[in-house]
C-alpha cells in the first residue's frame, strides 16, 4: 500500500476533466467573521479619513475605548448579567413551550387543530405590541419582561420546529412502527433528531429575537440591563455604547452555529 502511494507521489501530472461546480464549494476558513471584519476595516478607514462625523458614528477605536471603560467600571458586566438572566429565563421557558407545542401539533391531529391554528394567528401579532396588556395583567416588574421574551421565543421556535417536524420522511415513521418503538422512544430517536435542523434555525432566530425584545423591555421601568444602558447612552448621546451592543448578537449567533455544527454532524447538504 505504501509502495503504491509512494509511486503515486512521484507523478506530478494531474490531468482531469472537472465539471463546473453548482454548489458553493469548500468553506472559507473563518468565513463568517470575514464579512464583519471587512465592514470594520471600511469603517475604520472612513473614520480615520474623516468621512464620518464622530458624533453620528464614532471611530472603532472610540467604541473599543468606550467598551473597555464600561468594563473597567463594571457597568457592562453588571448590565450584561442582569440582561442575560432575564433573557435566559424567558428563553428557557419560551423554548420549552415552543418545542412542546410543536410536538403536540406535529404528532396528533387534535393537537394540530388546536395548537397550530392558534399559533399561526399569534405569529402575525407583534408580541411587543402586547406590552401594555402584559403590564396591566402582570404589573410593571420583572415578570412581564420575562413573559414577553418567553412569548417571542416560543412563537419563533414553534414555527421552525413544527416545520422541521412535519418535514420528517414518512418512511422513517414506518420503520419506527415495524421495530415497535414506544411513543417516547419514537420522539427521542426519530422526531426530535429529525426536527433538529428546523429547531436550530428557530433557536438562532429566537436568540436575536430575545436580544431585540430586551432593548425595548429594559427601557420600561428598568434601572439595570443592556437595554437600560443603551437608553442612557441615547439620552447622553454616547453613540459608542450603542455600537457595542451589535457585538453580542454576533457572538451569541456564532456560539449557536458552533453547537449546530457539532450536533448536526450527520448531515451532508449543499453547505457542506
Amino acid at each position: 500500500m505504501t509502495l503504491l502511494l509512494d509511486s503515486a507521489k512521484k507523478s506530478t501530472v494531474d490531468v482531469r476533466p472537472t465539471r463546473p461546480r453548482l454548489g458553493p464549494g469548500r468553506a472559507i476558513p473563518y468565513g463568517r467573521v470575514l464579512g464583519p471584519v471587512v465592514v470594520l476595516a471600511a469603517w475604520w478607514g472612513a473614520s480615520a479619513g474623516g468621512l464620518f462625523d464622530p458624533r453620528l458614528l464614532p471611530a472603532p477605536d472610540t467604541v473599543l475605548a468606550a467598551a473597555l471603560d464600561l468594563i473597567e467600571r463594571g457597568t457592562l458586566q453588571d448590565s450584561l448579567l442582569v440582561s442575560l438572566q432575564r433573557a435566559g429565563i424567558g428563553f428557557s421557558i419560551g423554548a420549552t413551550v415552543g418545542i412542546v407545542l410543536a410536538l403536540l401539533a406535529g404528532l396528533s391531529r387534535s393537537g394540530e387543530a388546536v395548537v397550530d391554528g392558534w399559533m399561526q394567528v399569534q405569529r402575525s401579532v407583534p408580541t411587543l405590541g402586547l406590552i401594555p396588556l402584559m403590564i396591566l395583567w402582570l404589573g410593571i416588574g420583572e415578570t412581564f419582561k420575562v413573559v414577553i421574551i418567553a412569548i417571542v421565543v416560543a412563537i419563533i421556535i414553534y414555527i421552525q420546529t413544527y416545520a422541521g417536524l412535519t418535514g420528517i420522511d414518512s418512511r422513517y415513521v414506518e420503520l419506527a412502527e415495524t421495530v415497535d418503538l414506544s411513543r417516547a422512544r419514537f420522539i427521542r430517536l426519530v422526531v426530535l433528531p429529525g426536527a433538529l435542523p428546523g429547531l436550530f434555525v428557530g433557536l438562532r432566530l429566537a436568540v436575536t429575537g430575545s436580544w431585540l425584545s430586551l432593548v425595548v423591555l429594559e427601557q420600561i421601568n428598568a434601572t439595570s440591563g443592556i437595554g437600560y444602558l443603551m437608553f442612557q447612552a441615547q439620552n447622553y448621546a454616547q453613540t459608542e455604547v450603542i455600537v457595542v451592543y451589535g457585538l453580542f448578537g454576533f457572538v451569541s449567533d456564532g456560539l449557536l452555529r458552533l453547537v449546530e455544527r457539532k450536533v448536526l454532524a450527520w448531515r451532508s447538504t449543499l453547505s457542506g
Partner: protein
Amino acid sequence: MALDTQRVTTPAVRVRDLVRGFGSTAVLRGLDLDIAPGQFVALLGRSGSGKSTLLRALAGLDRGVAGTGEIDVPDQVAVVFQDSRLLPWQRVLPNVVIGLDGPNADRLGRDALAEVGLAGRERAWPRELSGGEQQRVALARSLVREPALLLADEPFGALDALTRIRMHALLRELCQRHGPAVLLVTHDVDEAIVLADRVVVLVDGAIAVDRPIELAQPRSHRDPAFLSYRYELLTALGVDAE
C-alpha cells in the same frame, strides 16, 4: 421428522380470504396463503399484481386500506424494505439495535453486524456506507430481533448485479442460521429460484402458481431443472420465455 409434521400443522403465517383494494380497484381478491415455520417463500408478480400490498398487510402497515379477511402472523415480525431506511442521524450500531431493550442490546448488535460482515463499522454514519453495506445493516437490524417471520420487499432491487449475487448468498446463510419463515417479494425470477424453498406467483390479486423448488443448494443457473422452473414461472408471469 415428527417435529417437521408438527410444525406444518401450525403454520407461521396463515392468511384466509384476504381482500384489499384501493378505491374501486380490487388488488387482492380472496387470497389464501400458509407459510410453514422456517420456510423461505418467494412471492413473484408483475408490478401492480398486489405483492407489496400483501406484504404490507402481513407487516401490519396497511392501516387505512379497505379490505376484509383473516391474517395470523407471529409476534416477532421483521421487515426489510427496498431502501435501507437507516436513520441518517444515528450511527450504524444504534440503527441496528433501535427499539431493542436490555443490557445485551449493544453486544447483540455488534454480533449481528459481524454476521453481515460489517464488524468495525459500528461508529460509521449511514451515508458513509455503500448501498450494499447499508442494506446489510438493514439485514442486521431485522435479524437482531430474532424474528419468527422476515418480510422483505424487494430488498435487493436497488443494488447492482454483483452486489446482489453476494447478498443472495448472505441472506441464504443468515436464514439458515436463524431459521425465520421468510416472505421475499421480488420481480426477479432467477432470484426467487436461487433463494426460495417455494415460489408463489401472484396474478391479478390471486395465487396463480404455488411451486416448491426442489433443488439442492447451491443452485446453478445452468442446471436444466433450474431452467425448467424458470420457464414455468416466466410463463405464469405472462412473459414469452422462448
